[in-house]
């Protein structure tokens, strides 16, 4: 008897905390997303409403090119499309280069600081880099004679999103770099030696041995990075709260504004946005679990 319940005794505290503060709220959020302000069941109306809002979903703007606010959902999509490949590229580049460079370990520790500082501070750092007069980016532009371009890059609707995305590459690259570094350590040296004896060039060795052997690391980086991009909040909040207009609006921020900032609050649409966000993150997580089970 006691033998059979022991495993569950160990799990009781976990079970209580996770049920009350994670599982129940998740189910409750889905439920709330089907209710109106008065608590009446309205089916998918909240979902219909958020997709009719220009600051959540505005694909026309992409085609017309008149405004620079495509809606939170599309902004998150753009974030993934730009941030993910750049994070993979720079992470791998730094991992490979710094392995062979003197002082590489110290440089790595400093680059990794992006993963240690609060994201709120990360946002402040980006705002400072992009500042019209005090920022180093504009200082650099002035030195190379592109003074006409100098501006506070986060203050304009047509530059803020790209500025934030590129800046967030700077913050996040420590992660992909460190995972790739660990992956590189795991590749048996014999493989490289064999390739060398066979006379393979560095380039060929890289593509035929290094990249395929790093596949597990790549899968992890792709998953974790995409999740991070979908959930992005702090940076956007501290720089412009989704502005100017809604040019840097993202899903997590849109959800917060609906529930806790706008007057009157609208929990129904906020819950609907959260549910959409979670469906997307679950898609990414399922991909990871599928890859795990496969290998």
């Amino acid at each position, binding site marked *: 008897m006691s033998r059979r319940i*022991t*495993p*569950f005794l*160990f*799990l009781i505290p*976990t079970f209580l*905390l*996770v049920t*009350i*503060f*994670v599982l129940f*709220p998740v189910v*409750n*959020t889905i439920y*709330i997303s089907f209710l109106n302000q008065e608590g009446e069941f309205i089916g998918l109306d909240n979902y219909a409403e958020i997709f009719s809002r220009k600051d959540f979903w505005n694909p026309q703007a992409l085609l017309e090119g008149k405004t620079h606010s495509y809606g939170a959902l599309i902004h998150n999509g753009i974030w993934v499309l730009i941030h993910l490949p750049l994070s993979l590229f*720079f992470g791998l*580049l730094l991992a490979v*280069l710094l392995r062979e*460079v003197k002082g590489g370990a110290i*440089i790595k520790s400093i*680059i*990794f*600081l992006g*993963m*240690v*500082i*609060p994201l*709120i*501070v990360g946002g*402040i*750092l980006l705002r*400072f*880099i992009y*500042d019209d*007069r*005090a920022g*180093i980016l504009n200082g650099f532009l002035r030195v190379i004679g592109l003074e006409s371009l100098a501006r506070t890059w986060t203050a304009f609707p047509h530059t803020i999103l790209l500025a934030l995305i590129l800046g967030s590459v*700077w913050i996040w690259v420590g992660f992909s770099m460190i*995972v790739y570094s660990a992956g590189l350590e795991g590749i048996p040296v014999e493989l490289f030696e064999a390739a060398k004896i066979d006379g393979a060039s*560095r380039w060929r060795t890289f593509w035929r041995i290094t990249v395929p052997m790093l596949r597990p690391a790549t899968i*992890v980086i792709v998953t*974790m990075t995409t*999740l991070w991009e979908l*959930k992005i*909040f*702090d940076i956007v909040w*501290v720089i412009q709260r989704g502005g100017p207009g809604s040019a840097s609006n993202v899903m*997590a921020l849109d959800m*917060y504004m609906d*529930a*806790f900032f706008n007057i009157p609050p609208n*929990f129904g649409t906020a*819950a609907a*946005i*959260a549910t959409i*966000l*979670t469906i997307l*993150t*679950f898609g990414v997580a399922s991909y990871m*679990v599928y890859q795990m089970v496969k290998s």
Partner: protein
Amino acid sequence: MRKLNIVARLKRVKGFTILTHIIAWAVSLIWIIPFLGVVMASMRPYPEIVNGWWNFEVFNPTLDGFFRAWNFPNTPLSRAMLNSLIVTIPSTFIPILVAALGAYSFARFKFPTRDLLFLAIVLLQTIPQQMVIVPIYNMMARVGLWDNYIGLILVHSAFALPWQIFFLRNFFSTLPVEVEEAARIDGASHFKIFYKIVLPLTLPALASLTALQFVWVWNDFFFALVLIGSPEKKLAPQVIPMIRGRLFIDWQLVCAASVIVTIIPIAIYVVLQRYYVRGIVAGAVKG
């Protein structure tokens, strides 16, 4: 002929090494300079940095920005830092204890629904904070734990459990079971085996969890933003947007505040660097 070949090759290799060094240092500088900029700006008066902190014609370093941030009106960092510690320390150790028990159960016992429960735990890791916050806010408001650190600590603890259990179960799986089996034959109870044998062997993993969880809770902005309201209860990262203001940015003040708030996570990172990095990599790669 052969000799020439070797010389040519040597030259190429040397050229390649120099090239990698140049690229590596150039790329690394891009990553390092902004940190330097914030530290510089935090200790120089605004007029000195307004045309670039990299100009040193006039250079009068001062701690004035740090004092002003520390004593900022309404939300002084002196109090916010203390508040952050009060929340972060329990939010670090409660979930680790709970997760260690849970992970041990997953790693050492066979029971029905185990694999299903574990898969659920893995998937729960990816739940966004936004997905739980409305019901949690309602719940806290109803039981009087809104604007109360106990509520925030409970939420942080619960939210950390999935990844910590995942991490620790993987770690327990690598420990040899023979010692535990021998102890069981000698009549030791499961709980005794757990805290006398397993936990001491788990210290490196616990160091990783402590470092990561402490920094994550310290850095967290969203939960505190929703669950804490009074100015005197605000946590350190929450104070930064208030110090930033809406229009004019006093860079000396804002950068000094950023440095103060960041000192704690950086100190943890410096002291526990090996465990910190190992935690991130193990949580990632082994998964």
